[in-house]
C-alpha cells in the first residue's frame, strides 16, 4: 500500500503582529480578578433582590397557558408557532449548529484575525444585515399572525390549506424556502452592494443568525401571552394554571 500524498497547498503569506507585550502577572490577572469581583457582586445583589421562580407543584391535569420554555429556547418555540415541529424543533437547530461549526472551514483565510469587524465595510454590513433580518422576521411574524385565511382563522399555512394545498406546503415547504431565501438574498445583496469577500459574507450571515435569534427570543419572551397570541408586554397576564 503506497502512502497517500497530501495535497500541497501554497501557504498563505501573512504577517502576524502581536505588538507590544506585557506580563500576565499583574496586567491580565488583575483584570480577571476585577471581572470576577464585579460579577460576584452582581450575582449576590440579584440573588438578594430577585427570587428564582417556583410555581405550583407539577400537575399533569392542568396545562399552564401560556407554557413557555426558558428564554434561550423561546426563539425555537416562536418558530414552532409557524411551522411543522420537526422543522422548528429538530431540523432548524441542527442545521444552525452544523452551519455555525462550519464557518472556519468555509472562511479559511487568516487575514482579518484579531480585528473587530474585519474591514471598513464590516460595520455597515453588520448594521444592514441586522436591519434586513429584523424587517423580514417581524413582517413574517405579523403576516402569519394576522393574515385572514377564511372561516375566521389566520395565518399563511391555513390560507394555503383553504386553497386546497396539502398542509405540508404551508407548514414545511414555505417556511423552509423562506429560511433559505432570506439569508441567500442577504448574501447576494451584500456581495453586490459592498463587493464582499468570503469573510464579509460570513459577517452578513452570522449577523442574520444573531439578529434572528435576538428578535425571535424577544418576541417569544415579551410579546406572546395567553394562547401564545401576539400582544404588547403590558397586556400579558400571569399564566393560568401556575
Amino acid at each position, binding site marked *: 500500500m503506497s502512502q497517500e500524498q497530501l495535497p500541497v497547498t501554497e501557504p498563505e*503569506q*501573512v*504577517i*502576524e*503582529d*502581536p*505588538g*507590544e*507585550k*506585557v*506580563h*500576565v502577572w*499583574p496586567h*491580565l*490577572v488583575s*483584570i*480577571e480578578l476585577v*471581572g*470576577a469581583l464585579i*460579577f460576584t457582586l452582581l*450575582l*449576590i445583589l*440579584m*440573588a*438578594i433582590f430577585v*427570587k*428564582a421562580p*417556583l410555581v*405550583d*407543584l*407539577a400537575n*399533569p391535569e*392542568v396545562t*399552564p397557558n401560556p*407554557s*413557555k*420554555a*426558558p428564554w*434561550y*429556547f423561546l426563539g425555537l418555540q416562536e418558530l414552532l408557532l409557524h411551522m411543522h*415541529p*420537526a422543522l422548528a*424543533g*429538530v431540523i432548524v437547530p441542527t442545521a444552525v*449548529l452544523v452551519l455555525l461549526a462550519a*464557518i*472556519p472551514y468555509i*472562511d*479559511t483565510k487568516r*487575514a482579518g*484575525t*484579531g480585528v*473587530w*469587524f*474585519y474591514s471598513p465595510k*464590516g460595520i455597515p454590513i453588520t448594521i444592514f444585515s441586522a436591519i434586513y433580518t429584523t424587517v423580514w422576521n417581524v413582517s413574517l411574524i405579523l403576516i402569519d399572525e394576522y393574515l385572514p385565511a377564511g372561516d375566521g382563522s389566520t395565518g399563511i399555512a391555513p390560507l394555503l390549506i383553504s386553497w386546497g394545498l396539502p398542509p405540508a406546503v404551508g407548514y414545511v415547504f414555505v417556511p423552509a424556502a423562506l429560511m433559505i431565501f432570506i439569508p441567500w438574498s442577504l448574501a447576494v445583496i451584500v456581495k453586490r452592494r459592498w463587493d464582499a469577500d468570503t469573510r464579509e459574507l460570513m459577517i452578513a450571515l*452570522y449577523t442574520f443568525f*444573531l439578529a434572528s435569534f435576538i428578535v425571535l427570543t424577544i418576541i417569544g419572551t415579551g410579546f406572546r401571552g395567553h394562547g401564545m397570541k401576539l400582544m404588547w408586554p403590558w397586556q400579558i397576564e400571569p399564566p393560568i*394554571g*401556575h
Partner: protein
Amino acid sequence: MRLRDLIVNNRFFKSIYRTGYPDTARKRVMVVINSLALHLHPVRVPKRAVRVTYTWGLGGLSIFMFVILTITGVFLMFYYVPSVREAYWSVVSLDTSVMMGQFMRNMHRWAAHMMVLMVLLHMTRVFYTGSYKPPRDFNWVIGIVLLVLTMLLSFTGYLLPWDQLAYWAITVGAEMGGSAPFVGKQVNIALLGGFEIGQATLIRWYTLHVIFLPLLLIVVVSMHFWRVRKDGNISTPIYPAEAAPEEVRRRLQGSAPANDEMA
C-alpha cells in the same frame, strides 16, 4: 511597606510562592510558570489582547459562572431529593427553612442564565474579531459543543424543582424531540425514560445535570483551554504579506519576535 513585608516576607508565604512577591520581571515570569492555576496563561501576552474592549473577558466569565454554579449546586444537592413525591417540597423547604437556602437557589438560577448569556456573547465576540480562523478553526468547533453542553446543563436543571414550569417545559421539549424525523419515538422514550413524564424522567435528568454533563463540560473545556494555548493564545491581527501597514513592517523588522510565551 511594613505590612507588606509582614505578609510576604515570611517562611509560609515563601513556601507557597517560592520566588517571593513578584516585583521584578523575572519574578513575574516565575510566578506564572510555578503556579498551576496561572499556568493556564502564557507568561506574557500582547498588550492589545488584554484590553477589556477587545475580549470583554467573556470566556473567563463563562467559566467563572461554572465555578459559582458548582459551589452553589453542591449546596443545593445537600437538600434536594430527586424523587417525584419529594422534589418539590424539598425545594420549598430549601426556600423557607434552610439557612441561606433561598439565597443559594437564587444565585444558582441567575448564574445559570448568566452562563448561557456569557457563552453566547463569547461566541459572538470570537466571531466578529475573526478569531475562529485557522489555526483556531477546530477550537471554534469545540466552542460550539460547549454552547450545546451549557444549554443542556441549564435545561436539565430547569426540570428539577418539579413545579408546573418544569413539568410543562419538559413536556414541550420532549414533544419537540419526539417530532424528529425517523427516530422521533425513540428520542421521546430516551428523553422521558419511558412513555410518560415521571420518576424515571426525573432521575435521568438529575443524573445528567449533577454528574455527567458537568464532568463532560470539564473535559471539553479543558480541551478548549489547551487549544487556546496551542493555537497561539488570544488572537492578534494578521495581515496579508503585501498589505501590512508600513508601521507594522517597520516594527517587526526592528525587533526579533519574542518566544517566551511557550514557557
